[in-house]
């Protein structure tokens, strides 16, 4: 099959062209086959094929073509396969690409949505503040209509996901911009010993030298060789510095990874060198968005990089050397020059004629020139974004018609076109000095940092040459005069992305939005994908003119990160979602436990029927994995002081081998955590906490020790996961443990309730055995060195088989503890539940000298305030109220259900509840309102425990 025609491709190679004519391939554009060479962008290949209309504008669906031929070209956003909003003037064409225009129907050529232009007077600035509001009942219709006009591509739901890890980097010097100044600065910094990260937005280093003349190309080769040959420079092309944050925390986005993915690089640079060059600015005049109107740099890129004629007959408006060079390049490319309008001598354009393409241009003075290409070169915008983000306030210089850096912080330098003008050698000289100075300052910072690091204490890590204290002087750069050219005598597009014209801006200012920030938000000028790079200075100039102020007085809008679009995938990176497993997790999985996500832990919720598990605990023996229970190893002579301070009860007389239950409250008397603490030795204790409170309680202990009692000799070591913890519960639990335990007399007389021993279990030394129980049955909580956890568990299951041992999960445990009336912090208490509201009257020892929360608890005790925790049973035992069901009197809420389950042991529903104190008396009838609205009677129980309130079963 023969290749499709490329009517605008130059036959003669250009000296600096970046296409490989030896190979060719094709891709499709709206179903048509397009020829391309390696090195072509999508747009250059389309332009070579004679395509002029490449998109439709946002609001009015006006035909659009090439404007800048760069990443930021607003008329070149395409759908490529499943990837939307591809910057077609930047993305390299690839074989087989499937490229489509976006948001056109039925086609790019005949777009029905262009009817919006007929409704233009109703779609002016801020129209959405005035339309699509009433009647409100039509909102669903408005949404459906507006959705059809959303101007973006689409992402199919089955698009494959690509995960790219974020990366951290710590360069001495980060150079933003890989043009001549950036390359020179990077090489100079690296030669001075700095590690350098050089970031360039385009696919290749070189900046404007790439499409320049012979001298530019020679300088380009030299600088590229210099960068390649200087060690210590990491070059990232097709990447962008997206933002600069405090302390030179810099976000770099690396594009073009497989699958269209991007990588976010978080760099902490000692020095930032900003060398972004200058961005050519469009001219505002009637018809400035018609396909065929483009910037001088666009024409030169197409001609010199891709060997593409941008048109056949051109009129050029020039105000500077770039425009003059464009005229020369156009001539060399065989484009007929129908007119050169020199703005430096008063020339100007009035309007372009044409709709789908330029047909003619009207110049000031009345002549109309037939042409198909209008090229403008009216000046530059300094992309000061990174400087603004560094805290700089660039100032406008009317002589040069652009902004310049102001006062930069110590860790930021600017070089290249953004800093001034001059010859190529002058600019490179400035950049080299900037690079050397950046390296010097970075070395000084490095020395200061090294001096602070423990790793370098006492001369470890070797010596380092001292930083040079003599600053490198940056030469002064001249500022070339440039006429201030922003808008012609007619109105035209200012923000091509947002379809905002100069007339819209003037109208907005006339309506009272007369500051640039207000005008921006009202019209959305600078709020589109280009984010002001092409339009902000024009917008400011037009606003200044409309308000009678200068550009300097008007100011600019705020440059905020990100500088360029970033995919959500890059920001997300690989999700870090730590997961914590018990040593017995493999057993749970192989025995089909239903997993419960409890914070970062995966716990077995049940293995089958929780009611059967409950029954096993009550009648035989069962075992639960409680490894997530917080465990803190406490050592030192002052541990009792710490326990007395932080628990509400007394600890001074806890003997070795004894265990005591304790509750911690915060300084406002609110219940914070509970658990048991056992004394293992003269100055050795083991504290347990709730699973979810483990880290918080550790922090709490350390906070009090380090800030209030640094004089106390206490060491706290978290050992939560040093032990695999399991609770063996049930009437046969002692019999089972006797089969596997050595060194511990398990008889009740030798090892009574609320005591602790250490010994060997299933051959594992160093086990801690607590005789405690959350379930209300005879039970032992084993803490086994974690590496042996699975072995001990499997041994228990094996040796207990004839006793009917089963595993039980968190759900069964919740039922068991509820039957026993044990509250759960955070379930039966909340952020306002003070100690006496949690039925802890028996535990709170107000006669202690002091403890955390005592004053508040003393007040609560005196005034009797706050709800009370009670056991509650619905009169109808078959009804299980949902947890958090309200307890009501009429329409007034007087309490709530905190825990609720069907009790397999009792064969009826049981609850814990918080109620007003006057309702807490046993026998009181209350009304529970179920979520669906039905109200049921329930009665306050005598005890919190619904089963074995005396606790006799635990003490056998």
């Amino acid at each position, binding site marked *: 099959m023969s290749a499709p025609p490329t009517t605008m491709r130059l036959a003669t190679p250009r000296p600096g062209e970046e296409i490989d004519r030896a190979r060719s391939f094709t891709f499709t554009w709206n179903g048509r086959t397009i020829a391309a060479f390696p090195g072509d962008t999508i747009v250059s290949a389309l332009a070579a094929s004679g395509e002029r209309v490449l998109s439709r504008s946002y609001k009015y669906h006006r035909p659009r073509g090439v404007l800048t031929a760069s990443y930021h070209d607003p008329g070149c956003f395409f759908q490529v396969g499943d990837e939307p909003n591809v910057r077609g003037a930047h993305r390299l064409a690839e074989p087989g690409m499937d490229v489509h225009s976006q948001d056109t129907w039925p086609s790019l050529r005949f777009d029905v949505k262009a009817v919006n232009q007929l409704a233009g007077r109703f779609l002016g600035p801020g129209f959405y503040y005035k339309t699509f509001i009433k009647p409100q009942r039509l909102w669903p219709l408005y949404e459906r209509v507006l959705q059809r006009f959303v101007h973006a591509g689409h992402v199919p739901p089955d698009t494959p996901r690509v995960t790219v*890890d*974020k*990366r*951290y*980097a*710590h360069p001495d010097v980060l150079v933003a911009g890989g043009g001549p100044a950036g390359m020179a600065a990077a090489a100079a910094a690296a030669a001075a010993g700095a590690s350098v990260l050089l970031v360039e937005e385009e696919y290749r280093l070189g900046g404007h030298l790439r499409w320049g003349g012979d001298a530019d190309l020679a300088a380009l080769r030299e600088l590229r060789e210099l960068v390649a040959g200087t060690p210590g420079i990491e070059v990232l092309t097709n990447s962008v510095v997206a933002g600069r944050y405090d302390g030179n925390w810099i976000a770099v986005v690396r594009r073009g990874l497989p699958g269209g993915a991007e990588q976010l690089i*978080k760099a*902490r640079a000692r020095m930032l060198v900003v060398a972004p060059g200058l961005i050519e600015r469009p001219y505002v005049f009637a018809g400035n968005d018609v396909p065929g109107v483009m910037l001088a740099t666009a024409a030169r890129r197409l001609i010199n990089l891709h060997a593409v004629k941008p048109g056949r007959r051109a009129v050029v408006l020039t105000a500077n050397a770039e425009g003059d060079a464009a005229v020369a390049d156009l001539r060399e490319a065989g484009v007929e020059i129908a007119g050169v309008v020199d703005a430096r001598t008063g020339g100007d354009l009035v309007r372009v004629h044409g709709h789908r393409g330029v047909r003619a241009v009207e110049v000031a003075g009345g002549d109309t020139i037939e042409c198909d290409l209008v090229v403008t070169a009216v000046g530059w915008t300094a992309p000061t974004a990174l400087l603004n983000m560094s805290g700089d306030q660039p100032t406008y210089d009317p002589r040069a018609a652009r902004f310049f850096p102001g006062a930069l912080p110590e860790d930021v330098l600017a070089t290249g076109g953004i800093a001034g003008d001059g010859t190529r050698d002058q600019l490179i000289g400035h950049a080299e000095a900037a690079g050397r100075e950046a390296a010097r300052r970075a070395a000084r910072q*490095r020395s200061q*940092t*090294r001096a602070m*690091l*423990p*790793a*370098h*204490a*006492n001369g*470890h*890590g*070797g010596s*380092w040459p001292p930083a040079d204290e003599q600053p490198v002087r940056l030469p002064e750069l001249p500022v070339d005069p440039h006429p201030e050219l922003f808008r012609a005598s007619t109105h035209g597009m200012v923000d091509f992305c947002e379809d905002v014209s100069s007339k819209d801006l003037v109208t907005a200012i006339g309506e009272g939005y007369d500051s640039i920030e207000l005008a921006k938000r009202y019209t959305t000028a600078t709020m589109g994908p280009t984010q002001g790079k092409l339009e902000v200075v024009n917008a400011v100039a037009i606003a200044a003119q409309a308000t009678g102020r200068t550009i300097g007085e008007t100011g600019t809008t705020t440059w905020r990160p990100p500088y360029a679009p970033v995919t959500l995938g890059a920001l997300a990176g*690989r999700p*870090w*979602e*730590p*997961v*914590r*497993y*018990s*040593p017995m997790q*493999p057993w749970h999985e192989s025995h089909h436990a239903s997993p419960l996500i409890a914070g*970062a*832990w995966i716990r077995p919720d049940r293995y089958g029927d929780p009611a059967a598990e409950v029954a096993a605990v009550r009648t035989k023996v069962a075992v639960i994995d409680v*490894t*997530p229970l917080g465990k803190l*190893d406490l*050592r*030192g*002579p002052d541990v009792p002081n710490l326990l007395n301070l932080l628990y509400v009860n007394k600890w001074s007389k806890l003997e070795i081998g004894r265990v005591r239950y304790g509750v911690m409250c915060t300084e406002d008397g609110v219940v914070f955590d509970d658990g048991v603490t056992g004394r293992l030795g003269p100055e050795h204790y083991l504290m347990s906490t709730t699973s979810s409170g483990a880290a918080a309680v550790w922090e709490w202990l350390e906070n009090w020790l380090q800030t209030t009692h640094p004089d106390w*000799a206490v*060491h706290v*070591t*978290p*050992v*939560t*996961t*040093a*032990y695999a913890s399991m609770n063996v519960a049930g009437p046969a639990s002692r019999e089972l443990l006797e089969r*596997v335990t*050595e060194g511990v007399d398990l008889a009740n007389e030798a090892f009574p309730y609320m005591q602790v021993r250490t010994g*060997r279990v*299933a*051959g594992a030394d*160093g086990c801690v055995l607590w005789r405690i129980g959350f379930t209300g049955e005879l039970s032992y909580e084993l803490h086994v*060195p*974690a*590496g*042996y*956890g699975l*072995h001990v568990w499997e041994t228990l299951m094996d040796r207990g088989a004839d006793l009917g041992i089963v595993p039980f999960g968190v759900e069964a445990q919740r039922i068991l503890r509820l039957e026993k009336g044990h509250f759960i912090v955070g379930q039966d208490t909340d952020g306002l539940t003070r100690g006496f509201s949690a039925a802890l009257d028996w535990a709170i020892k107000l006669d202690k000298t002091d403890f955390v929360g005592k004053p508040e608890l003393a007040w609560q005790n005196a005034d009797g305030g706050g709800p009370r925790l009670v056991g509650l049973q619905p009169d109808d035992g078959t009804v299980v109220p949902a947890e958090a069901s309200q307890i009501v009197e009429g329409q007034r809420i007087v309490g709530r259900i905190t825990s609720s389950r069907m009790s397999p042991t009792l064969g009826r529903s049981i609850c814990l509840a918080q109620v007003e104190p006057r309702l807490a008396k046993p026998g009181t009838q209350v009304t529970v309102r179920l979520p669906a609205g039905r109200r049921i009677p329930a009665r306050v129980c005598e005890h919190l425990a619904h089963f074995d309130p005396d606790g006799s079963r635990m003490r056998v």
Partner: protein
Amino acid sequence: MSDVTIIARSPIAPAAPVRVETGWEVSGCRSDAALTITDCTPLTKVHVRAPWNGAMAKALGVPFGLAARENGWLMVGSGPGEWLVLAPPGTAEHVAGRLTETAAGSAPEEFVSVIDLTHGRALVRVTGEQAPDLLALLCGVDLDGDMTPDGAAFRSGLAGVATDVVRDDRDGTRSYLLHCERSSGQYLFDSLLGAGESLGIGVDGFTAPGI
């Protein structure tokens, strides 16, 4: 029960083939990749707390932020007044005993605690010149040779898990020991493997003494 020989398990599931090394179940696989990861959880880990500037600190001889080898142990100054001693598997009782004797002899007046945390930590070693590149995908600390030279020790976040890092080069090749609380060990290992896939990481089994 006294004659039962039990095997300890790491929180990190060993890659096949599985064998037993000094009482621990370990992976027997070998990798010749330029970048390798090894589960070193079987190593003895003994935690010491003492005044950061006292006699015990002097006797240990390793300040905060540094690690040093002595008598086959790796002593790590993991925090101010906090040390972790890494030793070959199965030596916890001996190591703890020696440290307790040192405290009694060198710092009898100081408050010193010695705790065996062998079972409480997951520990992996990453070795290869690209080890810093791997860690740079998970950790924000500057791993430049000057900022973290051989023997540097610090605590940071790796893949969202609080992790102690020790640079402990092997035969001139960059190597890092990473340890975290035990229950996050599998997650940390998987995170390192996932991030290291693009660098061609290989799993290398544990071989005693391992330190």
